[in-house]
């Protein structure tokens, strides 16, 4: 009876009232692993649990196989630390983590992105990592990445891989219709304008009748960075104010961009029914060769999607077009590792040793980066791939701006974004009206979160 309610209640029942991970007391971590150097092994056998999203490409089509190989290599150096791997999915993993945290069964280590990690850090659920980051490593990683890895003056995420979120184009479609010149691939920075983008969409609509020109999605939160950056660039706006204190995307130009998307849907330049499509739905269509542009892509996703392609085609990364053809503002994907403070110093020390291995081992450090398909966050680590698209991804790092994931109340802000998009796609509001309503709710969420943190 009422299975979900029972699940909520069982979750609550399994936890004690105020015993969340962050509330457990722990002394200063004893082990101080250092970047790039051999970590001090824990004295006694320790068992840690690592929950991992599919951040690394599957080996032989088996999700988690690469991670197992990595753990085996780690155990050759640190036989005293047993790492229990549990693979979680991007769909259900976040919910599973919330339940685990609330029921005091959070994993020891997680490889994730700032969107969730910073939220946990602000809630005091994570162990600080500052003592495992020597100065040479700290200065080798740009400040923009540290901003996304720290809460106040404490580092709660060890940043490892990155890639700017961009668009992707099915280059083969444009080759077939003889319209490759409409894409900005001959420009080194590939920067292009909204008008050029519209011309490319129109060409697909007219000449490639079995291909949908472009996509949009607003069913749920996943992949929302794609829709955010798309509208912000088409409308020459920023999502948040520079000091992250309020929403800034509710400009006339961004509103007009959103109105254009709604109209383009009717004009068959954008996929129909986008209000009910999720990011994964439209990416599936892209991988099936059924749409020309995806608005949610990156070098990391390119690598993750390589085994999921259902059609033979060549894709190319592109920056989001801007209203006036100026330089785009791209949100970065950033991946890194964090440690839940489960109140056990030995586990925290062992987890740091493991993170140090994943990020800095002389063999597995680079191997791991390549397996994620991402670039290194370290300025000194470049040229990992012999591939044109990765070279461009590295170049496009210059367009990266501060992402909204570090804003206070980000988890709640996200919940207001896609209903705002839906209301425009369904003709309930104009773009400006929807963005204003979104800004009002999101600003309240930011203020509430700031008040709670005080």
């Amino acid at each position: 009876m009422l299975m979900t309610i029972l699940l909520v209640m069982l979750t609550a029942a399994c936890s004690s009232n105020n015993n969340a991970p962050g509330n457990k007391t722990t002394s200063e971590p004893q082990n101080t692993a250092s970047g790039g150097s051999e970590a001090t092994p824990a004295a006694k056998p320790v068992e840690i649990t690592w929950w991992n999203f599919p951040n690394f490409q599957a080996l032989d089509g088996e999700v988690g196989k690469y991670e197992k190989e990595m753990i085996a290599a780690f155990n050759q150096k640190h036989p005293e630390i047993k790492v229990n791997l549990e693979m979680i999915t991007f769909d259900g993993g976040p919910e599973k983590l919330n339940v685990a945290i609330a029921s005091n069964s959070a994993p020891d280590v997680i490889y994730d992105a700032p969107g969730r990690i910073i939220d946990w850090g602000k809630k005091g659920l994570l162990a600080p990592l500052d003592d495992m980051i020597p100065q040479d490593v700290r200065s080798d990683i740009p400040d923009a990445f540290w901003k996304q890895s720290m809460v106040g003056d404490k580092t709660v995420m060890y940043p490892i891989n990155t890639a700017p979120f961009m668009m992707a184009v099915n280059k083969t479609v444009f080759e077939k219709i003889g319209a490759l010149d409409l894409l900005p691939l001959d420009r080194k920075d590939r920067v292009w304008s909204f008008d050029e983008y519209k011309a490319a969409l129109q060409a697909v609509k007219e000449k490639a009748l079995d291909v949908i020109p472009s996509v949009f999605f607003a069913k749920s939160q996943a992949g929302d960075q794609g829709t955010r950056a798309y509208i912000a660039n088409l409308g020459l706006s920023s999502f948040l104010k520079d000091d992250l204190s309020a929403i800034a995307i509710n400009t006339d130009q961004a509103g007009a961009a959103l109105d254009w998307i709604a109209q383009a849907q009717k004009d068959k330049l954008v996929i129909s029914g986008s209000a009910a499509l999720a990011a994964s739905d439209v990416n599936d269509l892209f991988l099936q060769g059924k749409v020309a542009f995806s608005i949610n892509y990156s070098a990391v996703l390119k690598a993750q999607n390589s085994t999921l392609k259902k059609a033979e085609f060549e894709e190319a990364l592109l920056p989001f077009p801007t209203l006036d053809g100026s330089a785009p503002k791209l949100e970065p994907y950033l991946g890194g590792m964090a440690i839940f403070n489960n109140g056990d110093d030995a586990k925290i020390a062992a987890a740091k040793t493991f993170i140090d291995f994943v990020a800095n081992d002389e063999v597995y450090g680079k191997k791991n980066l390549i397996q994620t398909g991402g670039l290194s966050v370290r300025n000194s680590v470049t040229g990992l791939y012999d591939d044109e698209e990765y070279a461009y991804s590295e170049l496009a790092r210059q367009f990266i701006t501060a992402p909204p994931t570090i804003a206070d109340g980000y988890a709640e802000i996200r919940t207001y974004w896609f209903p705002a998009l839906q209301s425009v796609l369904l003709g309930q509001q104009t773009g400006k009206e929807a963005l204003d309503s979104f800004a009002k709710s999101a600003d309240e969420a930011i203020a509430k979160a700031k008040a709670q943190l005080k």
Partner: protein
Amino acid sequence: MLLTALKSKRLLWREWLASYLFLLPALAFFLLFVAYPMLRGAYISLFDYSLNRFEFIGLRNYADLFRDKTFLKSMKNTILIVLITVPAVIAFSIFVSNTIYRKSELARSFFRGVFYLPAVSSVVSITVVWASIYDPNYGILNYVTSLFGAEPIAWLGDLRTALFAIIAVLVTTSVGQPIILYVAALGNIPTSYIEAAQIDRATPGQIFRKIIWPMLMPTNLYIIVITTINTFQTFAIVQLLTAGGPLNATSTVMYGVYEKAFMLGSFGVAAAMGMLLAVVIGIISLIQFKFLGSDVEY
């Protein structure tokens, strides 16, 4: 005399003990996995309970819910789904059962199997099939309607159709058990009653109203109550097909519970939503027993 009385008492005690020992496994399971979580849920619904907070706030979660437009919309959607789905399931099940129960055993088994198939299939598999049927760009439903000159519709993305698209899936997945039960119940109605009515020149409508329907009342009560409870808990289909959208047009209370608890980590609010839903289901079930139970003929 005294010895006999003592023996009799000891026997009674043993019987009492044995009966409770037999009950114990089920009772323990009930207390641990039903009663305790329910009580605990009622308790935490009085707290501001998130990933790192546990603070007593009295009835504020409940008060907030009554001001929460999304929750009110979800409750309205849920009630609308129940109001449409339950009568549709009953009517369709009786129609199908009435059509097939006089057929040969082979035909009856075939149709029962066909209609029961969704009940034993995974909701996820069924929903994936429906998602492809409803797909606005490549779905078979739009293909069929286009043969009649209709424009493609985003069935799950249009405010006018999304909720009804969900209800259609819900109805098709809910009729299996009622059909099995109605076929069995119809088979138990003595044919002599119907034959006597036919001799008296009763019309098929009169036979249904005056004989079949009253004889089905015990089955009706069970099916109405169970279908109502199940429909109030609509969750998986909504989560997989629409995630409550567009614009909360298909959001249900159970989906809201999931969203608040597992996506936002607001366990106190989710528990309050669950308690309110339990109260609504309890009241409606009581009403159903009160008004339908009195007509039951055993």
